[in-house]
């Protein structure tokens, strides 16, 4: 815990538009320990994806983005890195998985070519044969039955669940220290999504990968994460260990969020008030405030 793999301190983001500066993040602080699985939950437009894109160094390229605050990855100040250095980080020590697996894969090249590209980012001298062997063992890790066949296929020839496994295997191919998963698999079926999430969880635990898991689905977060940050309109409103947060949500927004999830035990649909002032209450930090 003392040496986090990633820490954000007072991260602010605004976009310059024709109407003026639109502030999207109002000072986000967040920390991910080594081997820790941390979730960022919040509703649409709350700023989850932009946070991920800043960590990946993607938004820094956008001329209209105004970013301030400190971002440390593995001890290094990300803002001090050059564009090339940030680019070199992506896909090697830091990697990502997106919402729709099928459209994140390139339709024009078979899977093995894309795998080779990914692996070559770490090892320039990798031969075709070595690459294939690595890819096969990686695909076996994500329980793909016939890895040789899958490697020859194109993304559109595989099912969504298969593509999602391929994406996971590729994202973990270079043994990154940090994996960012932005709503992974929301485009998939519930049962397929559940399967691949379990698989991904087991794999990152085994490899000790730290994960920033972005989702608006509280149920998925509860099953996946060690710690949770709840974001509302560009502010973290509550954070703490998953059990504490789900067992005893304390911030009005978190409470509303939890109440809104339909329960399989029934009980009807709750009456959720319109966005209330209380949602902007000060942040609650379970780790410092939990009484002994």
């Amino acid at each position, binding site marked *: 815990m003392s040496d986090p793999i990633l820490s954000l301190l007072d991260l602010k983001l605004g976009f310059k538009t024709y109407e003026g500066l639109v502030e999207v993040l109002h000072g986000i602080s967040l920390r991910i320990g080594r081997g820790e699985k941390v979730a960022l939950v919040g509703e649409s437009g709350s700023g989850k994806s932009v946070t991920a894109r800043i960590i990946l160094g993607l938004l820094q390229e956008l001329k209209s983005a105004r970013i301030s605050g400190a971002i440390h990855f593995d001890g290094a100040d990300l803002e001090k890195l050059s564009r090339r250095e940030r680019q070199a980080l992506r896909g090697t020590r830091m990697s990502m998985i997106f919402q729709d697996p099928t459209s994140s894969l390139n339709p024009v090249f078979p899977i093995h070519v894309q795998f080779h590209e990914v692996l070559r980012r770490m090892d320039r001298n990798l031969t075709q044969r070595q690459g294939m062997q690595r890819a096969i063992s990686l695909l076996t890790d994500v329980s793909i039955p016939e890895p040789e066949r899958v490697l020859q296929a194109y993304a559109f020839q595989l099912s969504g669940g298969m593509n999602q496994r391929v994406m996971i295997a590729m994202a973990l191919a270079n043994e990154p220290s940090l994996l960012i998963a932005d709503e992974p698999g929301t485009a998939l079926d519930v*049962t397929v999504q559940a399967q691949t999430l379990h698989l991904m969880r087991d794999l990152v635990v085994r490899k000790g990968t730290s994960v920033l898991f972005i989702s608006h689905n509280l149920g998925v977060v509860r099953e996946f994460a060690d710690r949770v940050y709840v974001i509302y309109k560009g502010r973290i409103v509550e954070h703490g260990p998953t059990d504490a947060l789900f067992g005893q949500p304390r911030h009005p927004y978190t409470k509303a969020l939890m109440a809104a999830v339909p329960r399989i035990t029934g009980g009807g649909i709750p009456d959720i008030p319109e966005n209330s002032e209380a949602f902007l209450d000060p942040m609650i930090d379970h780790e410092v405030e939990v009484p002994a």
Partner: protein
Amino acid sequence: MIEKTAEPVPVLEARNISKTFKAATHEVRALDGVSLSVARGECLAIVGESGSGKTTLANMLLGIYPPSAGEMFLDGQMLPTRRSLPLRRAIQLVQQNPLSSLNPRRTIGASLRLALDVHDIGARQERKTRVAALLDEVGLPAEFASRYPSALSGGQRQRVAIARALACEPEILVLDEPTSALDVLVQARVLRLLDELRHRKALTYVFITHDLAVVRNIADRVAVFERGIMVEMADTETIFTNPGNAYTRSLIGAIPIITDEEEALRKTVLENKSAH
């Protein structure tokens, strides 16, 4: 068959309907011999994974295309392939994505008026007030009539889509994943509105979804579809306490849940499979 209700004539009935799509190289059997009936005022949920034929069923109920085999009945009368305006009016649809289901270049008011104009509902002069009343029905202010969809949030758009379906004064609403494009908080509000509208206006719902947790809280009965076949049909309580089908159980097992009570329920359901 667990036909609980002994309703004399169901408001909507499908008898043994099938649908086969002809693709270039092969045929797709999207729906295979499905029979079901919906009682007046009931909410029947149709659940199943992607490609299980839920939307195909909805499209045939709405008369978008005819079934390859089988018949459908509305109030005991057989539904013809080409439907007259009154028959169309009786069954309306709320789609999944309100961003696409509302015309981006027409105002909310114009979209709502369309139904009134087509079916000649109310006198011409009072249609404007009817539009306002419709908006009010779904909890939106009357000023929204002059706005474009882009100026509305996702939840507000879905409310407009519901109002548009209601404008036809239908008997039956087919809801195809009406809340799966929405955030949890917004989803809860829209679901509550739908539930309330059904009771207030004595509407009948065919509620299509893949989210079983939603089903638990809104449906009276559930039909489970798997690859074009209805594998189970039971009242909601039974589905969640004692599902008779392995596929239904796997769907319940896949629901991400957030409380310990749910965890316990899910566990018993999954363990029950040995009992069957």
